[in-house]
């Protein structure tokens, strides 16, 4: 094969990988917050991503008609707004359902409540997925504007033969994703709230001795995790079309990223998501479409079997 052509393909994939990776990374961060603070594996995480997508879509459809909102920046703002909206939903869900299977009460349940958590979130996933199918319909939709179809050209390089096209919408999404992660990192690292969440995750009993309400901390963490993943979904909505079942496709991607980075580590989750994104896009050069995701599964299984604690793995207090 033409070496320069290959080079161009590789560069193009790397760029796409970085862009997708940033968004995957954001979604992985949302997932890892929930596990890191609450030790809960949330099977419904993909569905909340899907809700973030639809939130962005519907707001765009209803409000996009108003002239003053008709800027290219509008979908991105909506994607960011999906965060607080789903944060509230997450808090409500926790109050109503999730708290019954987490926390100190739950340690009385079988297997320390993990069984119940897994199954409960599976139930929620089914309801959201299929409820979504009913409410939103099965026709794929997307939120796109001029930016989705425009690209900057990086090049021509190597004497006019190699050119890499960098999609503008995806780049903006990736930058925003990175910004949200950094913002979140600051929240956890510098604010009293963030520190109290980390304390509650480190040692719930000692946190109670400090006057921290661990149940409330869990509720906030759950809301944050859902909200952040929803932003990731909203940002992705500007790139590709989606339908209510899209969550399942992304569940394994998110878990692969989180496990690769180490369950409970925010840095690790973002890095893991980036690596998965790059792997996926680069493997598209050599593998046919359907097998791209299989590559991710294989990676996922390999990590889980060979080095379950991932790159930045935390001590597993659970097992």
């Amino acid at each position, binding site marked *: 094969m033409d070496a320069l052509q290959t080079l161009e393909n590789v560069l193009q994939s790397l760029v796409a990988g970085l862009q997708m990776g940033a968004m995957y990374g954001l979604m992985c961060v949302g997932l890892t917050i929930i596990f890191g603070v609450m030790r809960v594996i949330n099977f419904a995480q993909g569905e909340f991503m899907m809700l973030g997508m639809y939130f962005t879509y519907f707001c765009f459809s209803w409000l996009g008609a108003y002239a003053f909102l008709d800027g290219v920046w509008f979908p991105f703002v909506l994607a960011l707004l999906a965060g607080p909206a789903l944060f509230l939903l997450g808090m409500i869900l926790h109050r109503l359902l999730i708290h019954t299977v987490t926390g100190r009460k739950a340690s009385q349940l079988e297997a320390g409540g993990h069984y119940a958590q897994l*199954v409960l979130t599976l139930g*929620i996933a089914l309801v959201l997925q299929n409820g979504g199918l009913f409410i939103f319909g099965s026709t794929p939709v997307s939120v796109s504007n001029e930016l989705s179809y425009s690209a900057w050209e990086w090049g021509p390089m190597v004497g006019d033969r190699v050119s890499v096209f960098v999609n503008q919408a995806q780049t903006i999404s990736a930058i925003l994703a990175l910004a949200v992660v950094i913002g979140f990192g600051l929240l956890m690292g510098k604010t009293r709230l963030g520190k109290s969440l980390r304390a509650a995750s480190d040692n719930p009993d000692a946190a109670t001795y400090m006057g921290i309400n661990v149940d409330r901390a869990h509720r906030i963490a759950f809301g944050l995790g859902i909200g952040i993943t929803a932003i990731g979904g909203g940002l992705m909505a500007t790139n590709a079309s989606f339908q*209510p079942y899209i969550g399942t496709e992304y569940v394994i991607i998110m878990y692969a990223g989180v496990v690769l980075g180490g369950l409970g580590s925010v840095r690790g989750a973002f890095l893991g998501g980036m690596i998965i994104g790059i792997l996926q896009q680069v493997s598209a050069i050599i593998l046919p479409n359907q097998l791209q995701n299989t590559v991710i599964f294989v990676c996922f*299984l390999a990590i*889980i079997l060979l080095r379950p604690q991932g790159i930045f793995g935390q001590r597993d207090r659970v*097992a």
Partner: protein
Amino acid sequence: MSGGTRDLIHIGLFAVVYMVLAFLVSNSYYQLIMTIVPVWAVMGLSWNLFSGYSGLISFGHAAFFGLGAYLVALCMIVWELNPWITIPLATVACGAAGLLVGLPTFRLRGHYFALAMLAYPLALLYIFEWLGYQEVALPRKEEAPVLYMQFESQVPYIALALLLLVIALVVTSRLIHCRFGMSLLAIKLDEDAAEAVGINTLAWKLSAIMISAALAGAAGGFYAVVLLVVTPLAVFGMLVSAQALIFAMFGGVGTLWGPVLGAFILVPLSEILYARYAADFPGIQGVIYGIAIIAVILFAPQGIFWKLQVLLKPGRSLVLGATASGMNDRADVGLLKVDAVPEAGVILEAAGLSKAFGGLQATNNLGFQVKTGELLGIIGPNGAGKTTLFNLLNGFIRPDSGSITFRGNAIVGKKPNRICAMGMARTFQVARPFTQLSVLDNVIVGAYVHSRGNDEAALHASAAIKLVGLERQCDLPAVNLTNKELRLMELARALASKPYLVLVDEILAGLDPDAMKEMLVVLRKVQDLGITVVIIEHSMQAMVQLVDRFIVLDHGALLTEGEPDSIVRDPQVIEAYLGKKWLADSGHEQTGVADDN
């Protein structure tokens, strides 16, 4: 009548009633439902047999279901093999697949295990899509319809589905009433305690997943024949795994009829709702299943079957399983007697044992001997490393350095169930009963390691129960016992494995003086049988009357050893317990020790 026979009768009755119904129902749609429901009941049973009993949550049973379906379909298309051959073939192949899946995945626990299991069917889904098998249709074989399981009437399909279900029920019934079921339940309720009583947890988990996978494969294979079309999403999709789980959970985990109940309620419900409303409410099936799961987890986490039991028989706690045998009144305590060992002398020896956790040196170059037949007490202030020592002796932790010799064999590095089989038993500091088994079953689980069959296990268990004096409580669920009874049961469970040596970890803690006296009498009886006893305790008062010899630990190292009289007055020991200043402040001089006698 034993549980197994009772089950067979129930199964037979059920089959007869179902077949009669099959002939009475004439609506072809209902007939189809009558065919599908048993298939899903088998999936539920398959999931239950593995996850319901072992406690390892599998979200990946679709992998085996789908493999079975594709195997049958592809064999028919490519090699023209008929389902009468290929369904059993699929069963065996999926059993092997179960083994392949289990071997690497069982090294994981909890969340990681569930995640890994989730990945297998999804990976297969993508692979089969890539291989081009998006929609595999079974060809019509008009020349030999019966050979290819293509009947005109729906009734033979129903009969075959029923046959599959009956086989699954019989297999499940046989397994749960023998040591398979008990061992798995023990693993589910407390895997470490099960290891400690000699259960080879890995071997049992592998057996369970193999049989479970085989059943799922059979169900999948038959499903392909019924539906005549196989698509990756339909057989590998998450809904399949979810359904297996839901039916078992909804109906009742860890029971024979629970999954059947779950399937028989939920499948017709969702199918009928789907037929009626799918056009207007796409996705209604999933919503129903989702709500069902959520409702069950919130209100009846153990399933409807158990909830009904609790409602109908209030006050009785859940008791899982039930061995085929009952208490054997003729069992004699002498069955547990240890014959005088020719190499009497030292039965256990530790040398240079060290273990550090992070920065903390929990065990520090510890060495000591245990004489055959003695009652040795290990004492020391809190944090001295006593329980760590037991965990090292018993195989739960590996020492950083040092050696342990038991009955002449080096045991460092051996797994706890091996060490138990060699003759060392133990109780735990925080009692670890198998809460949802009866007292008798708890002790029988301990007896498995050295018993050939259920009856022999029951015999040994009965002997142990008699020794500790728990005959009256033998049918109570362990969760209903008092503190003292719990400790006695733990001891009986350890003794039922016919040990030469038993490690007793703080069995007296929290007991009132009368209970303590009772416990001491029992411990003496144990020693009288020739069993060596090593006991950790804090309560010096009791120990002083009981033991032959003391070993005193402090900060993980050996402080001193000797007979009770001298230990209690030893200034080093007093200092370790009460503090250095005690001797100085209180003016307790050590010169006139002999005068205190």
